[in-house]
């Protein structure tokens, strides 16, 4: 099935821009240039999730011949928020929250997308060094006054990642990056309906033979617009008036119903 004409035009424009940028770059080693299909996602009343395309072009220096197999890993991190993870245990026959850990300034959204499994792209050491994959992303935990990164097999960390993944907010996929030519690729970043608002950082790393050879970064903003934006800001900045407005709305609705359905 063909994409609609405006989309094909947009893709062509992005590719032309990438080619221009790639040609004007100094030729020392591989260079990566990326471009996002949009740097601004707007949430209006009809928002039900979205997809962002990340285009990338790997520029080869003169001494490198084509034919090197490149791998790509795209890491997208959403705004930082703190989360409390609680564990239930049986107390007096009831299942009760007993133990908790707070993940401080954790990405509210995290996607790691690659063209093939991360284990095939680089070995464990490189993965750890380059913070590749959800297991290697830093998740700070507050323990009393101290902050510490959690190891990948920490039960609270695993539960946190499992639950966020279940909500579609943590994603690790080796099927969402595809090479269009040997050096041009596209990644599709899925944004679920419940995506948080704020700044999203896109970090793209290119590997060859298990080593990092090039890297580029970009950012996009997800924000509510129009009525949704107005409500969120008003509820935060004018809490009393917002509450009064909702209370009056309730009275009005009730009054209207009693008038409409009046039977005497």
């Amino acid at each position, binding site marked *: 099935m063909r994409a609609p004409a405006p989309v094909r035009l947009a893709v062509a424009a992005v590719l032309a821009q990438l080619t221009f940028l790639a040609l004007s770059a100094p030729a020392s080693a591989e260079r990566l240039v990326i471009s996002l299909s949009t740097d601004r996602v707007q949430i209006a009343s*009809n928002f039900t999730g979205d997809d962002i395309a990340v285009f990338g072009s790997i520029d080869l220096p003169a001494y490198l011949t084509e034919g090197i197999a490149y791998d790509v890993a795209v890491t997208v991190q959403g705004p930082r928020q703190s989360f*409390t993870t609680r564990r239930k245990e049986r107390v007096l026959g009831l299942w009760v929250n007993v133990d908790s850990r707070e993940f401080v300034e954790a990405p509210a959204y995290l996607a790691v997308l690659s063209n093939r499994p991360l284990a095939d792209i680089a070995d464990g050491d490189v993965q750890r060094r380059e913070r590749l994959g959800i297991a290697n992303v830093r998740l700070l935990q507050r323990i009393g006054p101290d902050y510490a990164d959690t190891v990948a097999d920490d039960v609270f960390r695993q539960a946190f990642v499992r*639950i966020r993944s279940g909500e579609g907010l943590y994603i690790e996929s080796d099927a969402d990056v595809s090479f269009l030519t040997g050096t041009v690729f596209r990644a599709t970043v899925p944004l679920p309906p419940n995506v948080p608002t704020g700044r999203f950082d896109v970090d793209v790393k290119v590997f060859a033979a298990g080593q990092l050879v090039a890297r580029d970064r970009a950012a996009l903003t997800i924000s509510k617009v129009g009525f949704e934006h107005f409500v969120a800001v008003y509820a935060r900045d004018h809490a009393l008036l917002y509450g009064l407005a909702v209370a009056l709305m309730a009275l009005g609705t009730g009054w*209207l*119903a009693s008038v409409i359905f009046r039977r005497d």
Partner: protein
Amino acid sequence: MRFGRTRAFGCVARPNPVQIYLPIAELPVNVFLILGMGIAVGFISGMFGVGGGFLMTPLLIFVGIPPAVSVVTVTAHMAASSASGAIAYWRKGAIDFGLAGVLLLGGMVGTGLGVWVFTILRRFGQLDLAIGISYVLLLGIIGSLMIGESVQAILRSRRKTAQPPRLAGKPRWFAGLPFRMHFRRSNLDVSVLPVLAIGGGIGFLGAVMGISGGFMLVPALIYLLRVPTGVVLGTSLVLTLATMAAAVLMHALSSLSLDVVLALILMVGGVMGAQFGARAGQAMRGEQLRLLLGLLVLAVGLRFLIDLALPPGEMFTVLQTERVR
């Protein structure tokens, strides 16, 4: 090379007229699902003369609305449905405003306390437990009492023997308390202390559990204070209206959880359903209605008990750390 239709372009922002994005809950919901829930709960609340919060709050949590948003937003929904009922009773003059005022005084204190406890419980991660246990206890006890009372009434009417005991004028255990006051419309002479206590208790539970407490207030007014049945429903609705409106304000001030869009959908569905429910209710006998309501209340209580007692599928929960003002 082919730029075929992929996920990147195929699914982008396909407008869906059924889904609407909730600005505070920060997720889209199906308008008709929420409207339908509003109508269904409104029907039940109109039929039995209760707020229906004890049904609405769990339903919203069940369809994925964050618990805090559910509890807070349901207060606005109940303000609307009680307003429509209260206006109808006001036209008939079936409201004791003096009694409602004293109940409200206690209710304000109770609601403020409840909103404060709600915020603290949420911070310590025990809100689910507190809501669960209070639902189990309250709904279990009230449901059983209602079932017992209505079954007796039905049996009595079958045998056509003794008349139900006349309640008004019986001596009460709090008869000796000071600060007596005369409530003209109810023709009642009673100390304000138990009235304040009842108002406070209902307000507190309403704010913590996201219920209007109508299903507790009505029996309390009838059996404890001996308020004439004709005045009870209207007076209870006025109190519900005032405490819920106050809870809306206090929640709006204390947390970012009140969602105006969700509230509006619920209100519209709720007031519509309530009108039809009220007609259905008038076609039934009082004790049959009370038996049905008792069974419903007990069933919801049991559901919460099962949730607390059975091992959960997921031992962990993740909540964004409190967005307190």
